[in-house]
C-alpha cells in the first residue's frame, strides 16, 4: 500500500480522515449546492448530483455568490458538510466557508493535490500540521 504525503498551510485546525471526492471545477456555494444534503446542483458542474457529505472535498477553490460561507455553515448544521477540505486557491469565500464549516482545511501545497488525489482515495487531513496523507485506492 503506497501512501503519499503533501505539505501545505493550515486554514482550519483539527484532524479528519475519509474518502476523497475530487473535482477540477470550482464550487459555487449559494446556488451551487443543496446545503441540506451536500449535493452539487450547478447545471454544468462535473460533480452535479453527487454529495460531499462526510467526504474529504478536494477542489480548486470557491466561486460565485458571497453566500458561500452561509451555505456551508448550513450544511454543517444539517450534518451534510464535508469532513475536511483540501484546496488550491485562497479567497475570502473559501476562507470564511472553511472557518464556519469547523472542518480541518489546508491549502498552499508543495504539489498540486488535484493531480495526486483521486475520488475514492483514503485521505487523512491534519489541519494543525498542514499534512495530507493519501492512500491510493488503485495501485499504479
Amino acid at each position, binding site marked *: 500500500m503506497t501512501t503519499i504525503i503533501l505539505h501545505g498551510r493550515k486554514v482550519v485546525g483539527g484532524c479528519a480522515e475519509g474518502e476523497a471526492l475530487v473535482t477540477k471545477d470550482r464550487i459555487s456555494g449559494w446556488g451551487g449546492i443543496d446545503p441540506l444534503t451536500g449535493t452539487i*446542483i450547478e447545471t454544468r458542474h462535473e460533480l452535479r448530483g453527487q454529495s460531499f457529505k462526510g467526504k474529504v472535498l478536494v477542489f480548486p477553490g470557491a466561486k*460565485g455568490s458571497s453566500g458561500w460561507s452561509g451555505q456551508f455553515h448550513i450544511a454543517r448544521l444539517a450534518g451534510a458538510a464535508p469532513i475536511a477540505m483540501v484546496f488550491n486557491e485562497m479567497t475570502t469565500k473559501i476562507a470564511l466557508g472553511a472557518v464556519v464549516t469547523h472542518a480541518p482545511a489546508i491549502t498552499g501545497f508543495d504539489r498540486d493535490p488535484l493531480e495526486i488525489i483521486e475520488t475514492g482515495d483514503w485521505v487523512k487531513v491534519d489541519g494543525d500540521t498542514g499534512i495530507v496523507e493519501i492512500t491510493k485506492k488503485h495501485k499504479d
Partner: protein
Amino acid sequence: MFDGKEGPAIQKAMDLLVRYGEALDAERLADTNNVAGTIGATMPFLRSYAAGEQGFDAVFSEFSLDSGEVLAIPPVKVFSSHLQQGFDPAHAEQQGIAPEVVKIYKKGGDYCAKLGVQPLNTCAPYLVGNLPVKGEICAWMESSAVIYINSVLGARTNAEGRESAGAAMLTGKIPYWGYHIDENRLGTHLIELDVDIDSVSEWGLLGYYIGEMVQEQVPVVNSTRQIGNLARLKHFGAAAASSGGVEMYHIVGLTPEAPTVEAAFGRNKPVATFRYGPAERKRIYQSLNSTANDTQVDFVMLGCPHYSIEQIWEAGRLLEGKHIHENSNLWIFTPRAIKQMADQNGLTKIIEDAGAFLMTDTCSALGRVLPKGVKVAAVDSAKQAHYLPAIMGIQAWFGTTADCVQAAVTGRWNGGLK
C-alpha cells in the same frame, strides 16, 4: 474587544474575525465604517432559530457570529446596510409566502431597527444611497455589489460572507487582505473586443464570457470606445461574478483605476490576452440559453441586479398599453426606495395595469419565489439565467429586456441573437 471587556458578543465577533484572518493569512485587521450584509431569517432553515425563545439573537449568534451559544447582541458599531431579504412582504401572496413567515420578516425588520442596521433590502445598495468613495475600506457581501463598488467606484472590499459581515457590524473590523491592498487590484488578463458592446444585454454577455475566461482574476477590458452606464456595468459585473469569481475589473478610460492600459496593469504583465468576437459572443449566448427548449414562456423576471429607476422607466415604456398574456407572468424587482419613486410618478401603475408586478426586497433566485407552476422563465440577466435553472429546476431563456417583455405579452419566446 478581543478580551471580552466590551461583552461576549463583541468577543465572539473578534474571535471569528481572527480565525478568518488567520485562514486568509492576513497580516492584520483593518478599520471599516461601511458594512453591507444580511441578518434576516426568512430562509426555511433559519426560520426555526428565529421562532425560538431567543429569536433573532439566536439567529445572529449562529449565522452572523458562528456562535452556537446564544448571546445578547448589542447595536452595531459602524454604518451597516441590509442586503436582500427572502421575499417581498407586500407581495407575499403572489410569492406563495405563508402569513407566519411574513411575521418572521416583520420581527426581523424590528430587530434590524433595534440594532441600527439600515433596511436598504437590496442587492444594489449603491442604487439607494450607499455609495462608497474611492479608497474606502468596506466589508460587503453580494458578489454583484462587491464587483461594482470595487471596479466602478474604486472602493475597497473583498466578497465578505454573512458571518464576517455580521462580525464587522459589531466591531468595525475586517481582515486587511485581497482587494484592500494596491497590488492585488492591478489587472492580470487583457480582453480585446472585436464587437461593439452597446446595450445592457451585450454587456451581460461580455461579463459572462470574461468570468468564464479569467475565473477569479482581474480582467482589463481594452476599449475606450464602449460607453458604460450604471445599468450596463451593473449587469456586466453581476455576470462576471456568476460565471467566474471576478470581484474587480478595469475598463480602460472608464473605470477609476484604469486611465490607461499601463495604469490598469501597473507592474503586472498580462497573463493572457483573450479576444471577444462574434464566435465568442454566439457561444456565450448559446451557453446562457442551454437550459431552454420550450418556447411557451410562463414567467418573465426582470431586475437582477435590482432595477434602477431608469430601467423601470424603460420597462414601463415597453409595457404601456399592453397586457401580460393570460398564461404568463411578469415580475420586476427593485429596491423599496426606488419603488416609492415609481409609485409616485405612475410607473407602478403602468406596470400593474399591464398585469405585471413591481416587487421589492428579493429576487426569484435568492428568495426562491416564482408564480405557481412555472416551467419556463425568460430573463434579461445573465446572472439570473445562470442561477435560476439550477436552483428552481426550471428552463430559462436569456435575452434583451425587449425580448423578455415581448415574451410576457405574447406568452412565447421569440428572442435570438441579432
